[in-house]
């Protein structure tokens, strides 16, 4: 495969054509949701590299802001000695560690973050480890906390592993003092989700239709393989309730707390106009802000440029998005394409026009492996060495997922997974009265062949048991599923009394979650330590490692199990 387009590589050599290889791969993030997910992803990418399909015609193509330097030069902040009470964190909370020296641990190796990200438990946890926060806070491991503040993460329900214990932790009291172990919970959500019921202070959010947003190149933009693109949302209806956009509330809180990025030198709010003010005027680096389009005082600059007070108007005029199409000679081999790298530097996507070289052998991983083998000043505790040596192979490897290895697979011979229904993919509100007519409850999908061998017929009730828990659900049989796997729709099951639904709603009476079966902690390992149920490299939650046993069950009043006590509908504070 060849495109008749000349291009120049990073050595300045000109090539007459762009030679590609028509092999593209489709993979989604579920691949990483296993304890061996990171190495599997690396293996897929290694294959792409060896096949010569990275950003080549016919292959996988980068979308801006990628390609980025490997690894990006940002390190996480939060080592002991960097964090003080009542003072802002002096750097970004997330980043890319490249050696044990970058870990956020103290001299004893104790994790410094409540989620234990960037510790020996999960050294490269570049996304943090949301799924461990409540458990760790309740167990005061590594420490207890005063306030838990969360936004739009349904952590007492479908975003939590091990829902029953999570609920217990959220309401647990210290036996001697009688105080809550997690003393204060602040939560922001647009809906009366399960998590809202555990909050001491609720910050009611707007919906997406009632506020400004930007889908930014600094985060997860709409981008195109043919060039950088970003977009905005604008409010199309005025809120008819006492709600505020969460981002505006955050800026307000930041200003009240006097955080330096959110206040002026005189201590006044830096973005008095709320989030829309921030979108236009915030600069991460000089000239680089949340939106790349229509920058500069007159709106003629792209990528880098002074803030433009009319930027949002210009976006609206352009259909709420901005797209810069790359020149034909910039569109492929972007990681080693001189003209592209020069462009990307000027545009503010990368800092310098250096070639971005893919690593077959990953030196940062090897540094951790060597530390585990006893080299260097910063070494892991005994409990962690074996696991680090196994997982931190500098060449992609495969090892069995922990939940399969640490439990008796003959007792739990099947896999159970979820997927999100397409109709609800980008709707936070699956309780919506139209969407719930389309899908108001879920079923457990089982292969005909497996069901027959267990005496299960379409519509029968079944139990699904893991090493951690048990649920009861109603079966539907199909052919298009591996006989060793069962699956269901994600997050359709709701707790009775939530989401503004009546107590007899099918979402709570027949709907169910697999979350109850998934432990956030692995069984004890040598030395009694319980690691989180995550990829040991990245800390990514290993949702898809779940092993189960399937059995036919009795119909108990047509109810799924477990059923939790009804929650009382949320009322506005007096």
């Amino acid at each position: 495969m060849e495109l008749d387009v000349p291009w120049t590589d990073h050595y300045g050599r000109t090539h007459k054509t762009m030679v590609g290889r028509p092999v593209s791969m489709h993979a989604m993030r579920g691949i990483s949701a296993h304890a061996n997910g990171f190495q599997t992803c690396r293996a897929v990418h290694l294959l792409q590299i060896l096949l010569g399909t990275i950003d080549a015609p016919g292959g996988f193509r980068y979308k801006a802001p990628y390609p980025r330097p490997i690894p990006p030069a940002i390190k996480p902040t939060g080592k002991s000695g960097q964090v003080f009470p009542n003072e802002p964190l002096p750097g970004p909370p997330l980043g890319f560690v490249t050696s044990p020296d970058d870990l956020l641990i103290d001299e004893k190796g104790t994790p410094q973050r409540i989620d234990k990200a960037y510790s020996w438990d999960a050294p490269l946890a570049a996304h943090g480890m949301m799924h461990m926060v409540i458990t760790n806070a309740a167990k005061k491991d590594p420490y207890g906390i005063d306030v838990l503040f969360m936004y739009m993460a349904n952590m007492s329900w479908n975003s939590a592993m091990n829902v029953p214990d999570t609920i217990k932790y959220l309401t647990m009291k210290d036996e001697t003092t009688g105080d809550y172990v997690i003393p204060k919970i602040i939560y922001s959500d647009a809906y009366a989700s399960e998590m809202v019921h555990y909050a001491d202070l609720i910050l009611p959010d707007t919906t997406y239709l009632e506020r400004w947003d930007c889908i930014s190149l600094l985060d997860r933009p709409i981008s195109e393989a043919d060039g950088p693109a970003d977009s905005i949302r604008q409010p199309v209806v005025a809120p008819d309730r006492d709600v505020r956009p969460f981002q505006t509330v955050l800026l307000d809180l930041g200003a009240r707390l006097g955080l330096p990025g959110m206040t002026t030198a005189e201590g006044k709010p830096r973005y008095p106009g709320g989030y829309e003010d921030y979108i236009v005027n915030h600069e991460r680096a000089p000239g680089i802000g949340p939106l790349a389009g229509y920058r500069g005082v007159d709106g003629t600059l792209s990528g880098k440029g002074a803030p433009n007070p009319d930027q949002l108007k210009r976006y609206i005029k352009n259909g709420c998005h901005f797209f810069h199409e790359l020149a034909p000679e910039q569109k492929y081999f972007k990681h080693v394409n001189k003209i592209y790298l020069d462009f990307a530097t000027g545009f503010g996507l990368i800092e310098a026009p250096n070639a971005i070289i893919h690593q077959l052998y990953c030196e940062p991983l090897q540094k951790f492996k060597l530390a585990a083998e006893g080299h260097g000043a910063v070494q892991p505790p005994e409990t962690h060495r074996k696991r680090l040596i196994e997982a931190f192979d500098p060449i992609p490897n495969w090892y069995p997922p922990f939940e399969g290895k640490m439990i008796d697979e003959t007792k739990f011979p099947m896999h159970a997974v979820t997927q999100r229904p397409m109709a609800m993919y980008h709707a936070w509100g699956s309780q919506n009265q139209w969407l719930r007519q389309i899908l108001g409850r879920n079923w457990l999908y089982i292969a005909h062949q497996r069901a027959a061998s267990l005496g299960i017929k379409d519509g029968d009730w079944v139990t699904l048991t893991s090493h951690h828990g048990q649920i009861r659900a109603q079966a539907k049989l199909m052919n298009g599923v591996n006989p060793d796997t069962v699956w269901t729709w994600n997050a359709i099951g709701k707790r009775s009394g939530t989401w503004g639904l009546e107590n007899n709603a099918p979402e709570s009476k027949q709907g169910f979650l697999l979350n109850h079966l998934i432990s956030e902690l692995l069984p004890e390992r040598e030395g009694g330590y319980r690691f989180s149920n995550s990829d040991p490299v990245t800390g990514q939650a290993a949702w898809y490692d779940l092993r189960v046993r399937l059995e036919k069950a009795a119909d108990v009043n047509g109810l799924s199990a477990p059923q939790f006590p009804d929650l009382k509908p949320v009322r506005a504070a007096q």
Partner: protein
Amino acid sequence: MTMLPETTEKKLGLVIDLDTCVGCQACATSCKEWNAQGYSAPLEDEDPRGKDPHGPWLNRIHGYEVLDEVREDSRIVHFPRSCLHCETPACVIVCPTGASYKRAEDGIVLVNPDTCIGCKLCSWACPYGAREYDVKEGIMRKCTLCVDRIYNENFAEEDRIPACVRACPTSARHYGDLGDPNSDVSKLVKERGGFDLLPEMGYKPTNKYLPPRKRRDQAEEGREALPKSDRSMVDRLFALADSLLSGKAGPH
């Protein structure tokens, strides 16, 4: 009894591609959204937050698992269902008040909400299940082909198409004049072997469906034999990659 026009100037309708429809329901919710606020009355739901939420929809998508007994495998086919704006539909003929009618200018079949008495004869006469009774309003509802969009001059040109067509993320829905053999939709039907639903009923549906394509491993054309190894450098590199990725046992 209501008379049908002998011919219509145009045959406006939809062509729905069963190959690319992924069952996302975007067309169903956009249809409900558009039609709940414009022409006729709102499409209100009953028991919206309770045990059995239900209400009228002008477009529904059903998912089927189709089993190939010979190959012992299956595929999921999503089937969007709305009024087919038939050429000779009994749903119009049986209407006692003239509320149901077929337009002579473009062939669209509509219900006049002011004269519909909710007798439901038409829904019995429709073999496609395309009409739904609106309990709250006491009238029959059906797809209007978004008649209040397609001629709406207040809209930008690209929005003068049905809401469902506008919403479909995979372009599985096409709108146009199926009476004109040179229209894009007619050409598409020809090229892809578009077909009528239940032709034996004799209703002559205007809307057409495009069949799912053969799976790639069943298609005859375009198949290439795998090249044999020539022990070249590239070949050996692949062999190395292969052994790295599959040959090496895990560390446990």
